[in-house]
């Protein structure tokens, strides 16, 4: 199974701002410092937001952000757009439910099991899908996650997933999860520290991985998979590892989702959930690691406030089109561009020279392509 890098593979403007400059340990430290500061500041949120409903929205957004973060990682570093990460999120959620309700496991063990199961699923699915690129990858991830959805709603799966009824998680009466009782778990303020820490730590891990040598390898594969192979690189394994890593982050989100919600709707594995997360990530933008998170927070906010008469999808559809047509880097990408324009006025001359070089390059590439075409 070979995959040369077709035009499809590179998502162009959607990931262009992702070019990161590596090899500066100072920046890495600054980034880590910022991450830890964000973590600590975020922990104070429940003391500031006292309204339970608002707090629960923030918590939902935080948990869903982990799904978007996973999708964003694949898009940002490999240019691969996944509609299948909902499968890992959902599988982990069901795994928590089954382990606690059916097997009577302790919640902590259930969460660990769920993350491992979600990651294992990512491994199996990854073997099947990461060789594909562009639409192939998009459709394969969609198809396999939908297969899982179909499985989950089968009557024969009722004992495990509750089929169309969903799965209610029932606990042993005296159980606790990291010190939280059952009543504490559904209290958004008390659950917040776990969700927030999980999100920030996941974000930092993905950020560090993206800036490592492994991240460079991924970028090389994104830019030119064939040349990587002809340069002696295995291009399958890094893609698989990235897929599993991003799937693990989504699984972590799913496990926390189940712990907090106590109930799993079958829609968690559905097409709509996968689509919503992808849209949120796209609107936020893949250019920086925060993009999908910001997108998810906006999406959850919009869902709560602008869902007049069920028209949310009408609006998100419109917004998605507007973003893709007019601001392909998403919100964060557009902000970055604006920032660069303001800051980089004096560098314009050199930029323009660069750009003309690029135009000539593409013209010439076209010319030589034609020649190649003629030759065959």
């Amino acid at each position: 199974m070979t995959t040369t890098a077709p035009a499809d593979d590179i998502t162009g403007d959607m990931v262009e701002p992702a070019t990161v400059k590596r090899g500066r340990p100072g920046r890495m430290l600054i980034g880590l410092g910022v991450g830890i500061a964000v973590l600590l500041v975020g922990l104070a949120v429940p003391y500031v937001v006292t309204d339970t409903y608002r707090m629960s929205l923030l918590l939902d957004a935080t948990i869903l952000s982990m799904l978007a973060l996973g999708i964003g990682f694949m898009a940002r570093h490999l240019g691969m757009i996944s509609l299948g990460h909902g499968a890992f999120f959902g599988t982990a959620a069901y795994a928590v439910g089954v382990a606690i309700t059916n097997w009577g496991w302790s919640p902590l063990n259930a969460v660990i099991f769920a993350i491992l199961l979600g990651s294992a699923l990512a491994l199996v699915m990854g073997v099947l899908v990461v060789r594909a690129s562009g639409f192939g990858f998009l459709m394969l991830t969609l198809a396999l996650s939908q297969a899982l959805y179909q499985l989950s709603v089968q009557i024969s799966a009722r004992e495990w997933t509750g089929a169309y009824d969903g799965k209610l998680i029932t606990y042993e009466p005296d159980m606790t999860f990291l010190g939280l009782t059952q009543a504490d778990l559904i209290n958004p303020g008390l659950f917040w520290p776990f969700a927030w820490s999980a999100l920030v730590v996941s974000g930092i891990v993905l950020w560090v991985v993206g800036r490592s040598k492994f991240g460079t390898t991924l970028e090389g594969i994104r830019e030119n998979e064939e040349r990587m192979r002809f340069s002696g690189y295995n291009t399958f394994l890094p893609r698989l590892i990235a897929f599993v890593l991003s799937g693990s982050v989504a699984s972590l989100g799913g496990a926390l989702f189940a712990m907090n919600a106590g109930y799993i709707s079958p829609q968690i594995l559905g097409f709509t959930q996968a689509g919503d997360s992808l849209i949120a990530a796209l609107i936020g933008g893949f250019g920086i690691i925060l993009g999908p998170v910001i997108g998810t927070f906006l999406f959850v906010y919009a869902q709560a406030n602008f869902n007049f008469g069920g028209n949310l999808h009408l609006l998100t559809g419109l917004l998605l089109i507007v973003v893709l047509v007019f601001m392909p880097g998403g919100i964060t990408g557009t902000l970055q561009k604006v920032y660069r324009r303001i800051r980089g006025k004096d560098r314009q001359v050199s930029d323009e020279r660069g750009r003309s070089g690029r135009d000539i390059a593409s013209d010439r590439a076209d010319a030589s392509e034609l020649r190649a075409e003629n030759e065959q």
Partner: protein
Amino acid sequence: MNAAQVLNGLALGSLLMVLSSGLAMIYGLRGVANFAHGALYMSGAYIAYSVSDRMGFGLAIIVVPLALAVIGVVLELAFFRPLQHRSHIELGLITFGLALIAERLVILIWGEKTLRVRPPEFLQGTSTIFGVEYPSYRLAIIVIALVMAAALILWLRLSNVGLHIRAASQDIETAAIMGINVDKVSLIVVSLGSALAGLAGTLAAPYIALDPGMGNAFLITVLIVVVVGGIGSIAGAMIAGMGLGLIQTLSTVWSPSFAVLVPYLALTIVLLWRPTGLAGKRIS
């Protein structure tokens, strides 16, 4: 397994064939998996409901594909053409947005409850075929779909426009340099693909119940059909569509819960065994 079950399989396969050939055509030419194809099919079914309510089903089967062809023209002129230099994935995600909008519009216009369309009088009964009594309307679906498929293939093979479409699907840039009017070809293909989705929607309307989720439910199957058939291959999509319809229906007899998984299994098996699909360019 009896003849009626095989015929049911053929009827489902026929719908998949019509729908996926349109998707495959657009995919082959523009390189974009049109996620709005399910929405086009659904819109076709709903428009068919309104048209046949007022003017009869016979007219609907002509009017709806024409109406959808017009929508296709709009799609091409508003999105595919101006954005053709964007990455294909971006364009695909835009059609995803269009599908979301269309789905909601259908609910706003026709409501959320399930609707039914009656087939024309003369097709409401049953006919005897291969020794079984079988609903005449489903036979009509099979006949219309097969005639359409044959006509489409012949047109692509024999006509001048068909030649241009095949050339442009091979390599759109080279085709343009050889003097083929790619914009015109693309306009024809996208509007024809949409019209086929409309035809499939119309044919499906009396056969299945209409609900706003019908587009998405079918879209995934049709995308699978196109990948299995080999991306961009119209004949491949037709064969895969018919084959999948048959296998899925017949396996329902054996085990309904297995049948639901058939498309996904088919996809996985085909891609492991033949990564480019049954008859196709590479997946990209």
